[in-house]
């Protein structure tokens, strides 16, 4: 994964222009490129920016004129957010999303790193065969687990709380987590671990004091990837959260779109509340986030 470290940064190195005329010639040569990139940026920004502007416009304005005409009116309000947070239960849904996403991130983080350590630095029978099985499990679609796991939980009533959705997210995050972390752990210097062993450190001690501290970048990338995966998930919440009061934001917004499909003041504000946390993560932890996503491309 280190090869992607600078994935989002650093333009190609180029010799600086020596004279003014050279600078002008270069700029002219690149005009079509600048125009093309400008159009691309517009196509990728306009839909999202449009929704963002809409979320701050009064309902009557939204129904009357397009968001691109806002410059003629310049009327903004926070009422949409107020309504969607309070009357439409989005505040509760926001809390619910966190209630689902935090355990569903911490559990696989702990369990996958333990397993990955065993797969990289402990010898036991059939270790590498078992690891290939884990790699194979990466491709199992989550759909195959719906009916059996619901059946398993029906008697226990676990689907009325979060237990089912936590466990499903954890289990289906493990193959990728074990794969990613094991591939990182085996790059740690062998001498370091063997020296610790010779000094009498136990496996648990080596894992806690050497492997984990040295693997923070990989663990962070996996954790961020998993957190956003769960935060953004609709399908598992749809199947395994069977108590309306516990619905996360994705389900709340899907419900809004179904019931109030033309109430754009609510949908825009709700949509932005859903995007709020991922956008903060994206802008603050971009490097880890991109690494996690690139490594996660196998999921």
């Amino acid at each position, binding site marked *: 994964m280190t090869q992607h470290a600078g994935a989002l940064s650093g333009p190609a190195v180029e010799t600086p222009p020596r004279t003014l005329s050279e600078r002008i010639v270069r700029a002219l040569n690149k005009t079509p490129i600048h125009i093309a990139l400008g159009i691309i940026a517009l196509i990728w920004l306009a839909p999202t920016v449009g929704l963002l502007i809409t979320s701050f416009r009064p309902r009557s304005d939204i129904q009357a004129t397009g968001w691109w005409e806002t410059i003629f009116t310049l009327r903004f309000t926070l009422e949409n957010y107020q309504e969607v947070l309070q009357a439409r239960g989005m505040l509760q849904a926001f809390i619910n999303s966190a209630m689902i996403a935090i355990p569903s991130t911490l559990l696989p983080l702990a369990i996958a790193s333990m397993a990955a350590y065993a797969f990289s630095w402990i*010898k036991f029978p059939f270790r590498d065969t078992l690891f290939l099985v884990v790699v194979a499990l*990466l*491709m199992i679609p989550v759909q195959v687990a719906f009916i059996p796991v619901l059946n398993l939980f029906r008697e226990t009533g676990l689907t009325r709380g979060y237990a089912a959705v936590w466990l499903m997210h954890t289990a289906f995050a493990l193959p990728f987590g074990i794969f990613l972390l094991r591939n990182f752990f085996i790059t740690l210097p062998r001498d370091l671990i063997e020296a610790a062993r010779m000094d009498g450190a136990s*496996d648990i001690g080596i894992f806690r004091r050497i492997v984990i501290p040295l693997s923070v970048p990989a663990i962070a990338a996996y954790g961020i990837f998993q957190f956003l995966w769960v935060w953004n998930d609709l*399908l598992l919440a749809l199947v395994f959260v069977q108590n309306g009061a516990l619905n996360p934001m994705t389900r709340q917004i*899907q419900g809004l*779109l179904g019931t109030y499909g033309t109430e754009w003041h609510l949908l825009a504000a709700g949509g932005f509340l859903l995007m709020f946390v*991922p956008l903060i993560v994206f802008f603050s932890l971009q490097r880890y986030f991109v690494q996690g996503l690139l490594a996660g491309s196998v999921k």
Partner: protein
Amino acid sequence: MSIAPPPQQGGTGTGVAAGTIPRQDRFALGGRSPVGLILLAPALLLLIVFIVYPTFYTILLSFNRGRRGEFTEWVGLRNYEQLLTRDPNFINLGTFPPSGAVWNNVLWIIFYTSFVLFLGLIIAVLASRVRYEAIIKAVVFLPMAIAATALAVIWSFVYTPNPDIGLLNAIIGAFGAGPISFLGDPNLVNWGLIAVGIWGSVGFATVILSAALKGIPTEIIEAARVDGATERQIFFRIIVPMVSLPMSVLAVTLIVNVIKLFDLVFVMTGGGPGTASRVIAFTMYQEAFPSGQFGRGAAVAVVMLIILIPIMIYNIRRFRTEAVT
């Protein structure tokens, strides 16, 4: 980065080659304790209970009528037969063009995959020529951070038929054409959805291919320029072949995305209008839950599994060859 052949834990124990020094003995010795199993136990337990056991359960269930999701009434291959021959919502080859969830997934695979790869490469190449490369990549990558549910809201808004609300119809209206209901027309709905999928994934391809482009030695491109190659030739004769490996890995990832695609379709169209935009993963949900046809839902899940198995084998092969080198 090497993975040893399965260790032989026989009488000799250590399993290390001749010329062993005591250090490696210690290493092997430490490994013989049950610690490995203890560390693995939680992961193995969860994988078995939530992935391995359900997979076998679902395969068996697909041969049953399966009311309440239990093994009631063995029906053999009837669920599959019904899905593949008598369910026009799943696959209908009787019309031209064909229709149904499987066909829609085929459209997705062809157009989503090729456009994401093509646009991703074009943007990566263009961006590499300017100073604000990082900004362009961040802008295009941004949708990757957002939930498919949020993409659905953003684009439902863009597609709104009312030209005073929907951006796209406002643009079409400016050219004097009537409003188009992108998501309400069975002939357009799949293209509308695929476009959103492309928009959401191009950044992913851009970032990966951009990293691959940076791996092409600049001397090669400089040498080609000196020899009088046109930009076009450089693109098709040097850049495309040099990034073909990351492109093929990306293509596999994108195809897996398509097979698992659910949220976007479910939120934007609910598979509609009618059943026009259903995809396989949507059908699985629809059969199993709102319709309560668990046997058929299980059969659809198995169809997904069968489609993914070649990719599973490809991944394992790739992993093993990587491990050897």
